[in-house]
């Protein structure tokens, strides 16, 4: 049983590996041929495109995995970091930091802002939920949507009062694009994403049992409250890292769990890594497409994620197994 599910996850592994290997060689310039100086080609491939591919992959992976975590904690397929407002919270935190003068280049300041924003939103969300005690899962999604709108209007307000320079930075931020960061930052973000993945996979069986309901999981010995808190904290850090480096890339996190379930089933020990791989591939694909279609102009990845994924997702949803 376990071995066969691992086999089912292989396509995701292959897809990710292929994309990661070819991504640095695809772009407006054929880096190896057209450049007279081979050094320049090397710089483009290894200093610009490879870190960018790894960053996009890590960010997509952690966003998709957070989507699966949200859906499982809330027991509703509509719950994702985007619909629950956690991503907007992170974006708000980062926008505030940008607005108050920290430069775009040192990203540790927006990073802290984004993680705090995501964490505060998660805590707000779950305290509202527990005040409305034992509400249905639809209720927490509803609360999340309200929180999301609330934060969206605060962000709109900030856009109204921001000076033009800050405004354009915030707008690009909100669309979401994968930048070429230095290797140091890329490795930091990638290891944060991997760390979150490991921590979440560690709680896989508990998260899986939560599907049977809060009371049922608790009576089976799962300390649901502490599970929720630790996973929310983990995903907040992950989403914060993602939003701080790439802005709020939308739409990742809602479809990947659905698609992966079709292929690998609901063994979360396999499902969680699969969702990570698929999410990473989606953002990487979107970034690649954005680099190619209107070259030499770039379309931000956040514009294209939905475009990459929705056809596949719709096809799989309409075609029952």
């Amino acid at each position, binding site marked *: *049983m*376990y071995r066969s599910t691992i086999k089912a996850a292989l396509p995701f592994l292959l897809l990710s590996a292929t994309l990661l290997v070819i991504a640095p060689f695809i772009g407006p310039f054929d880096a190896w041929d057209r450049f007279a100086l081979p050094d320049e080609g090397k710089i483009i491939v290894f200093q610009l495109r490879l870190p960018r591919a790894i960053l996009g992959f890590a960010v997509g992976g952690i966003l998709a995995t957070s989507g699966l975590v949200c*859906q*499982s904690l809330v*027991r*509703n*397929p509509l719950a994702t970091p985007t619909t629950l407002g956690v991503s907007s919270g992170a974006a708000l935190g980062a926008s505030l930091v940008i607005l108050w003068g920290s430069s775009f280049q040192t990203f540790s300041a927006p990073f802290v802002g984004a993680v705090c924003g995501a964490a505060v939103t998660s805590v707000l969300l779950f305290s509202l939920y527990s005040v409305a005690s034992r509400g*249905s*899962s639809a209720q927490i999604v509803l609360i999340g949507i309200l929180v999301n709108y609330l934060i969206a209007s605060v962000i709109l307000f900030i856009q109204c009062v921001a000076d033009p320079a800050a405004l354009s930075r915030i707008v690009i931020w909100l669309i979401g694009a994968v930048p070429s960061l230095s290797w140091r930052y890329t490795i930091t973000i990638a290891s944060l994403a991997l760390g979150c993945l490991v921590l979440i*996979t*560690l*709680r*896989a*069986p*508990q998260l*899986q*049992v939560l*599907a*049977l*309901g*809060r*009371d*049922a*999981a*608790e*009576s*089976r*010995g*799962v*300390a*649901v409250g502490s599970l929720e808190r630790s996973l929310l904290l983990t995903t907040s850090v992950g989403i914060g890292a993602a939003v701080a480096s790439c802005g709020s890339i939308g739409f990742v996190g809602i479809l990947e769990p659905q698609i992966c*379930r079709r292929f690998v*089933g*609901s*063994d*979360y*020990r396999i499902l*969680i890594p699969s969702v990570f791989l698929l999410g990473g591939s989606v953002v990487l694909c979107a970034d690649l497409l954005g680099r190619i279609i209107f070259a030499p102009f770039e379309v931000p990845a956040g514009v294209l994620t939905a475009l990459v994924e929705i056809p596949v997702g719709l096809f799989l949803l309409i075609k029952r197994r």
Partner: protein
Amino acid sequence: MDEVVVSNVSVAHGGRTIIPNISFSLKRGELCGLIGANGVGKTTLLRAVIGLETQYRGSILLAGREIRSLSQYERASWFAYLPQKRDAFVTGLTVAQVVESGLVRFVSGFRGLDTAQRRTIDRAISLAGIDRLSDRFFDELSGGEQQKVLIASSLAQGARYLILDEPTTFLDLTSAHGVMQLLRELILHEGVGVWVVCHDVSLILAYGDRVLALSREGGLVKGTPAELSGSEVLTSLYGQPLRMIPDPLNRFPCIVPQ
């Protein structure tokens, strides 16, 4: 021994008393029923006894220890709970995976079940009589089959007591009796204690060893099915006269509103 002793427990939410000062005990090896009108607090009482509802007064002792002092992990070896409301989002879980959830407290993402635990799962599956279902998807099963899978999962948990909240409500006649017979077999062979909320009074009178009847005015009335079926308790329970029609083939009567 492994007795659950509930003494002087009352539960109030926002100043409104839901459960008024009641006492009873549960023992292993018997099937205890809990009946009462809708909204009288049966589920609240159940959740308090198994440690999910912590806002109560009085004491609930498991082998002499207060339930609130036990960790979630320890409670899981006392009670396996089948909630009435399935606040569930079960997509793509196989029957085997649902049964394995009974042992979730022993595993992590990087540590699976050991051989002995696998055997526990297989045994629970065969005891519940669902061997032929084990590779199917849980959400594709009928209500009766799902209930048996969940009972198998509770059994795998290895708890001393199975606590079931209206396990027969959505089941057809045969499936409902199937579930009750399964519970009797588990009591006989595994020595567990069973506490079950049920709206079908005839069913609980037929299969129960003891019955607790909860009402807002009278509090908790305890008795054997034989004691209760002859008395006025059942009539007062639902605020409406009941007619008991003796069944010549069964010890206990059919019960219908008058």
